[in-house]
C-alpha cells in the first residue's frame, strides 16, 4: 500500500466523526518509558497517536514537526523529561527554548498553536501520558482537520 492511499483510507470523511491524526515526538528516557508504563498499567486512551522515539527532546528538530504537518498530521505532541530531570542533563532546556521560538513562528505563519502540545511526562507518569494524549486529540478534534498544507499544495502550480 502506498503512503498516499494509506492517508486516503484514513481521511476524516471515512469515519463518522473527525478522527485527527497526531504525531508524537518523545524522548526515550522519560515520555517513551512513561508511555510504556501507561501500557503496563493498562491506561486506556484514544488510538490516534503515532509515536516517534528519539533519544532526547533536544534531538527534536522543529523540521520534524513541520514534516509531520506536511504529511497530513492534524496535531503534534512533543514530550520529554521534566525540566531538571533530563537524562542528558539539559537537552530538554534547549528543546524548551527552541519550542518557545517555534510557537512564535507558528503564530507568524498562521498555524493555530493549539495544534501542538508540549508536555513533560516522566517515566512514572503513565496516567499523565494518557491524559496528554486524550486532551490533545480532543483539542485537535475541535479545531478540525489541518488542511492548510493541502490547500497550499493544490494552489502551487
Amino acid at each position, binding site marked *: 500500500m502506498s503512503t498516499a492511499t494509506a492517508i486516503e483510507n484514513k481521511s476524516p470523511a471515512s469515519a463518522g466523526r473527525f478522527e485527527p491524526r497526531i504525531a508524537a515526538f518523545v524522548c526515550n528516557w522519560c515520555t517513551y518509558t512513561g508511555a510504556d508504563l501507561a*501500557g503496563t498499567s493498562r491506561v486506556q486512551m484514544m488510538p490516534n497517536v503515532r509515536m*516517534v522515539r528519539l533519544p532526547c527532546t533536544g534531538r527534536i528538530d522543529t523540521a520534524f514537526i513541520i514534516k509531520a504537518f506536511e504529511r497530513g498530521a492534524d496535531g503534534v505532541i512533543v514530550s520529554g523529561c521534566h525540566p531538571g530531570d533530563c537524562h542528558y542533563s539539559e*537537552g530538554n532546556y534547549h*528543546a524548551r527554548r527552541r519550542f518557545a521560538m517555534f510557537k512564535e513562528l507558528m503564530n507568524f505563519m498562521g498555524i493555530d498553536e493549539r495544534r501542538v502540545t508540549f508536555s513533560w511526562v516522566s517515566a512514572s507518569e503513565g496516567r499523565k501520558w494518557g491524559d496528554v494524549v486524550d486532551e490533545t486529540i480532543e483539542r485537535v478534534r475541535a479545531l478540525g482537520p489541518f488542511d492548510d498544507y493541502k490547500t497550499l499544495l493544490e494552489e502551487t502550480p
Partner: protein
Amino acid sequence: MSRIGVFVCHCGENIARTVDTAAVAQECGKLPGVIHSVDYKYMCSDPGQLMVKQAIAEHKLTGVVVAACSPHMHEKTFRRATAGAGLNPFLCEMANVREHCSWIHESRTAATEKAIDATRMIVEKVKRNAPLSPIHIPVTRRALVIGGGIAGIQAALDIADGGREVVLVEKEPSIGGHMSQLSETFPTLDCSQCILTPRMVEAFQHPRIKLYTYSEVESVDGYIGNFKVTIRKKARSVDEANCNGCGACQAVCPNKKIPSEFDAGLGKRSAIYVPFPQAVPNIPVIDRERCSYFRAKAKGSTKVVCGKCAEACGKGAVHFDQQDTLVTEDVGAIVVATGYRLYDIGKDQDSELLKGYGEYGYGTVPDVIDGMQFERLASASGPTAGKILRPSDGKEPTSVVFLQCIGSRDPSKGIEYCSKICCMYVAKHTMLYKHKVHHGQATVFYMDIRAAGKGYDEFTRRAIEEDGARYVRGRVSRLYRDGEVIKILGFDTLSGEPIEMDADMVVLATAMRPQAGMAELAQKLSVSYDKHGFINEAHPKLRPVETNTAGVFVAGACQSPRDIPDSVAMASATASKILGLLSNEQLEREPTVARVDESTCSACFHCERVCAYGAVEHKDIRDRSGNLVRVVASVNKGVCQGCGTCLATCPSKSLELDGFTDAQIHAAIMAF
C-alpha cells in the same frame, strides 16, 4: 534494495487479543522492500528467535523489524538474535505494538490500524539504518571516593581489598566523619569509636588507598572509565611528611578557647589542632581564621606575632607559608559519600522556611542542645569525659526532655522527609542517660516511633520498659527558661491533655540534611539531586547506588537519611559495582553518538555551546604541507552521550546521530 523481514508477535494473547496480528503481518508484507513478513505466538522464545535467524539466512535480509513489546523490554534480545545470524545488530529495530497499542486500546480495528502504522514507520526507518559497531573505550582501573566517613571508608576498603587502587578525599583534617563523634551506636550500644577507628587506621595504612585529607574536589572532567579529577589540597600549614604527631605545637598554642567542631561546640580546641585524639592522620592543621599569626598577617601587620608552634616543633614541620596545591588524579569510577549535616535551627537560613522553630529557642535558651551535642556529652572522649552535665552550669540534669522530628516531616519548615535515624538515637539517648544518671527521668515527645530494622523495635521497647523512658505522643508548642529550669508547654495527643513540665535539659532531634555545597559538587559531577540536595539514584529500586551519570556512584547519607548499617551496606554495594566495572580493560558502549560532516561544517560551534558533556572539540584541517586550512567541529565519541541536541541546533545540518539520523526520522515521519 532493502530486504526487510517483519516479525509480528502475539505475545500469547497480550497483543493478539486486540491487534489482528495476521493482518499486520499481511499488510506489512505488501510494503516496498519487505520480502518476508510473519506472525508468531512468542517471538522472544527460542523458536521465535530461531525464526528470525533462519529468515535472515534464508531471505538474505538486510533489516529486521520485530513488532512486539517495548524496545526497552526486548530490543537487546532481538539484536542478539540478529547478530547471531551474522547481520549487524543495529539493523534490527522494534515496533512497539503492546505497551503503546494493544494494552491501551479496546477497538480491534483501531489497534490493528495503529499497529500497522507503527510497524510501517519502523520499516521505513530500518531501511535507512546503517551497520554500527559498539564503541570501545579504555578504562582507568582505579576509583575516587569523595568523603571519608563510614560510607567512604567502607567503599574505599572494599575496592582496595578487591585489588584496585583508591583515591580517598576528605575535606576535614581527619577521616572518620560523624560516626567518630558518636558515643554508642544502636541497637547494640557498642562504642562507636571502638568499631570505627580500626577501620580508619586500616584505610590509612592500606597499600592501595591514597588518602587526601583536608582536601576537596575542585573539578571533574571526563567520563566513565576516564575521569580526570583535580583535587585541592588545602594549606594545612603543617608538613605532613615531617610531622610525627607529638602534639607539642598544640600544647604551646595560646589560643585554646576555640569551640571544637568535633565536640559540637561543647569542648574547646587550640588554633593549631588535631580534631580528636584518634584522628587519622594524626597531623595537626592551623585554623588560619583563628590563629594569631595569620590574623595579624591578614590585617597587614609586618610584625611577627606568635609563632610559638613553629618554635616548639622539633621537626620544623610548621610552615606558615604553605599554599593550597592542586593535584590531578586519573580514575575510572567515582563514589560520592559526602554524608550529612544536622539541621541547625538557629543558624540554617538558606531558605525562608528553614528559619523556623524560634519557639524552641535553640541557641538562645541555655541547655537546649541538639542530638550530636548529647552524643558528645555521653561520649567517654567528650568534653565531660562521658558525664551527662548541663552545658550552662555543669550540674547533672535530673530531667531531660527529648523532642523528635525537629524539622523532619514538617513541610511548613521546608523538610517533608523522615530523617529515619532520630527515633532510634533518641531511644539510645534515653538509655545512655538512664545508665549514667540512675535517678534521672527521660521524657520523649514523638510523632510516631519508626523503628523498622533488625532489633530496632526491641530496642525502643527496652528504652521504655527497662530504662523507664516516658514517651509522650505529641508536639511541644513552646519552651522557655524559667530560673534554673526549662518550662515546656506541649500536648499529649493520646490523652488529649495539655502538658506543662519542667526540664533541666532539652535535646532536639533535628533533621538530617545533605552537606552544604552539595549542589556545587553534584554539578561538577553532572549528577542530579533532589530539591533538598540529596543525590538522586539512577533508579529507586533497581539501580540504587548508581547515578544518572555513568561511572558515578553514591553511598550513604548523601543520597537520603541513612543509619550506619544502611550506609555500610550501600558502600559495599558501590564497591562491588565498581569492582565489576574496573574488571574490564575496555568498556563497550552503544554507538549512538554524533558525528560531523567536515565538508559542510562552518565552524560556528553552536554545537559546542549546547553540548552538556563537552564532547565537541575543535579540529584543525591542514593541507599536505601542514598549513592550517580551516577549523571544524569534531565529536569525541568517548564523551558523546548521544542526546542529539547538537543536531537540532546545527544551522548547516552538518551533524548526524548514528541510529537516529535525519534521514531515518524523516523516513519514519513520511510513513506516518
